[in-house]
């Protein structure tokens, strides 16, 4: 369990998602899945966060919010895109107000597939995010 040496704090932001992935992210916090046992904590403050968890795709209005949140997070930081919409735009990719996946705005380290992504795969994505975080930390150290 060496790469759990740091317990990552997560900032969740809902892009233009249908809510499905968001509530699955929240479901990860609750007794059945309980990510807090790994030391993973959901925080509301970007300046406390190590991992940015984004659900939903990018549209005209939230593009600057996502950029802003990413900028406010301290280095090293990791972005996890949760769900089909965050990965590529998903079922809404052809709607007029959708610009595509999160990687249009910020660099994405882990892509979690699914519509809606299941809690198990979200937790898996976060664990892979921890590994990416560890690598980045070694690089900067």
């Amino acid at each position: 369990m060496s790469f759990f040496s740091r317990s990552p704090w997560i900032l969740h932001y809902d892009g233009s998602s249908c809510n499905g992935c968001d509530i699955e992210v929240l479901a990860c916090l609750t007794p059945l899945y309980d990510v807090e046992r790994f030391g993973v904590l959901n925080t509301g403050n970007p300046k406390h966060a190590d991992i940015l968890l984004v659900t939903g795709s990018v549209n005209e209005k939230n593009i600057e919010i996502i950029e802003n949140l990413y900028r406010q997070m301290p280095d090293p930081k990791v972005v996890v895109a949760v769900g089909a919409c965050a990965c590529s735009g998903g079922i809404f990719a052809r709607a007029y107000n959708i610009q595509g996946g999160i990687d249009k705005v910020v660099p994405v380290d882990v892509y979690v597939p699914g519509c809606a992504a299941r809690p198990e795969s979200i937790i898996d994505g976060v664990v892979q995010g921890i590994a990416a975080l560890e690598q980045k930390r070694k690089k900067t150290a």
Partner: protein
Amino acid sequence: MDSASFLARVGDYHKAGWRLALINVTTVIAAPAPPHGAAAEPAAPATDAPTADAAPASQAASVFEIAWAFAKDREFETIREQITVGDAVPSISEFFGAAFLYENEIRELFGINVTGIGLDLQGQLYKTVTKVPFSHQAIKARLAATAAAAAAASAASAAAAEKKA
């Protein structure tokens, strides 16, 4: 549309205790976009029938259908109006305070000039990438793009089939 009589009808619904359920707009695209060449076909006697790509003619037929829907217990009624692009539509905020969201929305998404909105959000409600995404031009442009993409795809698959053969 006749604003005075329209507002009087809305006022009657308000007095009778109806609830505003929906304001819906439909962009009327009279005929499905015809393929190339077919556009020049003379469009029968009806003077306002649109000919797909002749700009002035399609301007004349740029019609929106608006429906104001009211609900009361189990009943449900609508007021329907047809307007053309550029016509002013009076706000019904004075009767139904909740109308402001619908009215800001139809102004922003359909480009309809709604006058006197209770809480005017100045076009900041959605801020879409495509401005006025449900205007006649925007819809026609999207339909044409979809048709072109479909045509390209079928041409490509036909070419692939030929290669195979």
